[in-house]
């Protein structure tokens, strides 16, 4: 085992992990910087003048366009804009959004929990479906069960999220009236919980308002299902493939020959080993979902970061788009790091390199 093979570093095992995490975070800084500069330049290279777009009042002429340009700092040379932008970022200022009229940081802080809550719920839902489905398919490859799982996955991947989203709304809200109206995170007439974490389910649980918790969960079910359906395929297929490989390996055969119970073999020995690739793919799926759930956010009026960035992009509103890309890049770095740490938990041989 690794603890034996390697000399124990000073500060113990956790100290080593901490140092490695630190190094990893530091090494991400150049990448983040690159993303920042690239987005900054890209936004300015794209055609479309935000000043013209926002000075759109009747009678707004060139003077007003120039005024907006000056307010947005776009009248300065580009290198000066970039330096100013970088300087602002070091002080935690991401600029102002013309679309919502708020500082970008405020907007992102308010909207990120909504996106994260939705993405986490969708991922949990997807995993809770994909793991059993993948395992069952792997245990009975080539049978009807396997084909049904394959069919479900194909369906989930083929139907675009806005179609499945609108379909779910049509059936469960419009026709059956089982779901609450698909307009955001909470019924508009319901009382909101105090802002503690920004995650409604957690906030409601913290103050013990279980009625509110149920309401928030009710709003979450349809959008989370829509997204879960979409990512079911990679997760279930990966589980199946990796389970098949593990089930055919020597140690499982040994376990079988030793007469261990089926349940113990599958869950304790096979699954734990099969989880590694699933974990990797979950990390990727999570990051993708966070950025790509813009259609789901639009369809369900979910006040998340992706729909926010899209609105800004359509209006050529630079600051929010840049802020969003920076946020996504940071989250991507964090998620990858977390996955690597979890790797170590699932497989002690792997370490946070």
């Amino acid at each position, binding site marked *: 085992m690794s603890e034996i093979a390697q000399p124990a570093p000073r500060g113990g095992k956790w100290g080593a992990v901490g140092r490695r995490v630190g190094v990893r975070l530091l090494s991400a800084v150049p990448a983040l910087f690159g993303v920042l500069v690239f987005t900054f330049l890209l936004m300015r290279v794209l*055609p*479309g*003048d*935000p000043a*013209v*777009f*926002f*000075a*759109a*009042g*009747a*009678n*707004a*002429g*060139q*003077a*007003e*366009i120039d*005024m*907006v340009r000056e*307010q947005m700092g776009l009248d300065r040379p580009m290198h000066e804009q970039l330096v100013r932008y970088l300087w602002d970022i070091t002080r935690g200022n991401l600029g102002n959004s*013309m*679309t*919502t*009229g*708020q500082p970008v940081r405020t*907007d992102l802080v*308010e*909207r990120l929990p909504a996106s994260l809550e939705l993405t986490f719920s969708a991922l949990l839902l997807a995993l809770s479906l994909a793991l059993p489905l993948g395992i069952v398919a792997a245990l009975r490859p080539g049978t009807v069960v396997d084909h049904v799982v394959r069919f479900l996955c194909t369906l989930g991947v083929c139907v675009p999220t806005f179609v499945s989203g*609108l379909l779910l*709304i*049509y059936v469960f*809200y*419009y026709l059956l*009236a089982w779901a609450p*109206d*698909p*307009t*955001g995170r909470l019924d*508009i*007439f319901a*009382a*909101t*919980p*105090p*802002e*503690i974490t920004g995650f409604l389910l957690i906030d409601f649980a*913290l*103050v013990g*308002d279980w009625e509110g918790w149920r309401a928030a969960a009710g709003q979450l079910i349809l959008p989370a299902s829509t997204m879960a359906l979409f990512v079911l395929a990679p997760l279930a297929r990966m589980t199946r493939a990796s389970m098949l490989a593990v089930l055919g390996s020597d140690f499982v055969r040994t376990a079988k020959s030793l007469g261990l119970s089926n349940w113990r073999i599958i869950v304790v020995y096979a699954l734990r080993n099969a989880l590694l690739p699933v974990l990797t793919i979950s990390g990727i799926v999570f990051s993708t979902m966070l950025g790509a759930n813009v259609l789901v956010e*639009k*369809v*369900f*009026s979910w*006040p998340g970061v992706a*729909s*926010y960035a899209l609105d800004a992009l*359509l*209006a*050529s509103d630079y600051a929010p788009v840049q802020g969003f890309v920076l946020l996504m890049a940071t989250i991507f770095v964090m998620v990858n790091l977390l996955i690597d740490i979890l790797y170590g938990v699932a497989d002690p041989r792997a370490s946070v390199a």
Partner: protein
Amino acid sequence: MEFNRRQGLAAAGGLAMGAALPAGEASAQTRAETLRYVTGNTVNSLDPSVPGSTRESFGLSMNVYDRLAAFGRKRLGDNWVFDHNDIRGELAERIDRSPDGRTFTFHIRQGATWHDGTPVTAEDVKWSLDRAVSARSLAPPQMSTGSITSPDQFRIAGPRVVEMMVERPDRLALSNMCVPYAIMINSTLAKRHATTDDPWALNWLKDNSAAGGAYIVEQHRPGTQTILRRNDNWRGGAQPGFRRVIVQTVPEVATRANLVERGDADLSIDLQPSDVAALAQRGRVKVVSVPQTNGFTHISMNNTMAPFDDVKVRQAIAAALPYQDMFQAALFSRGRALFGADWTTTPPNSDFPQPMPLHTNLERARELLRESGHPNGFSTTFTIGTGVSAWAEPMAALIKESLARININVDIRKLPDAQFNTGQAERTLPFYTEGGTAWLPAPDYFFRLYFTRPQRWNFASFNNEEINALTREAQFETDAAKYDAACKRMIEILAAEVPLILAWQPLHEAVMARNVDGYTYWFYRQADFRDLKRV
């Protein structure tokens, strides 16, 4: 450690109590007294004059702020529409106009108060008017269309009396006191948040209100929702029917239609014409459809760019467009056609926009094209913005098909809105379509705004000496007959020169619960909640 955690929980509990109070109070009011308005856009500023404010911001400010004056409303068929010829006082209880038409005296309503309970003073009004002509906002260019340009034009003439003077008797001076930019602000409150960089408190008023209007902003979350509570001390008009109004952003248009039809929302506008038709047919909601009397959809040709600088080419295009088919395909004919009139040189009246003598006649189009020296046609690009693609795409396809018959090859180009607007402002688009709305639908204002000067809203970059001169005079014309004659002459020139083609006025369609009554079409194309009540 244990102690700390308890403290944390107690703090959380305290927060919960604090947050729960207003919500509890709110739920005491019944659903019937609440209007839930769902819209695809967002209220991004509480001050409508901030650059970038959305139409929803204009609509909201009409309910939150008072202006000195307001337009009345009149019946058009079964519906209510605004009437720009009927101006009444709003914050002013009386408005006097001097015989020479150059001085307006506003008498502030007795007992008028701001939302914080302090009385409205002449100083507040003077400050608000000064702000409308001085602040770095979208208000000054609008005010200048009524010859209102300088703080010197406003004078405090006594307690609760303010005078406004214009150099010449501008026909639109008073009308400009009715537009969303002319809000009356609690100056004591606003000045407290003014800075040396921002003397008119633009930044603060974007997210806060210092108002005295019919509704008070209770909660404002840009991008999500804004909640209003009725101001029971408001005396600017009849008491509004709803105690509470929720303006909620629901981006998906199909969802908005579903919400109203299921009865969960009470009002939505700007739905897809096809959805509205289906909703009207199923009959579970009330549909109010009013032609946008101050709006139009145009097909513009760049008059400074070859070949559209040749009047014969423009006339050929005007004769080649398939008007009726476009109207059907783009809008399901839900609107008022501005083509197909049977007059030839002189219009029957001075109203504008009015139907123009535009007819599809391919023979005539070919002949005109020959006369212009393009017997073999030419190639051009027709541009549409993504924001209007729902109706512009079918229209563009029909234009392409029809112009191909007279050998004009049209490429259709679809651009994101910001890019489209940039091209339009820089006048690099040769041939395109868009919609327009004039807040003040006086014919001379229409012509001044859309057909004169090298500015953005002169869609076709039209420059006609006679129209330039006529608009300059008509603005100050006090004689009704002379004004009418000038307007008719301008319409004649438009029909002959066809700088652009006015296609139709789309319907403004509002879908609402069947028991909501009083919906009025306003020039800023938003709901005025003060008009509405449940019956």
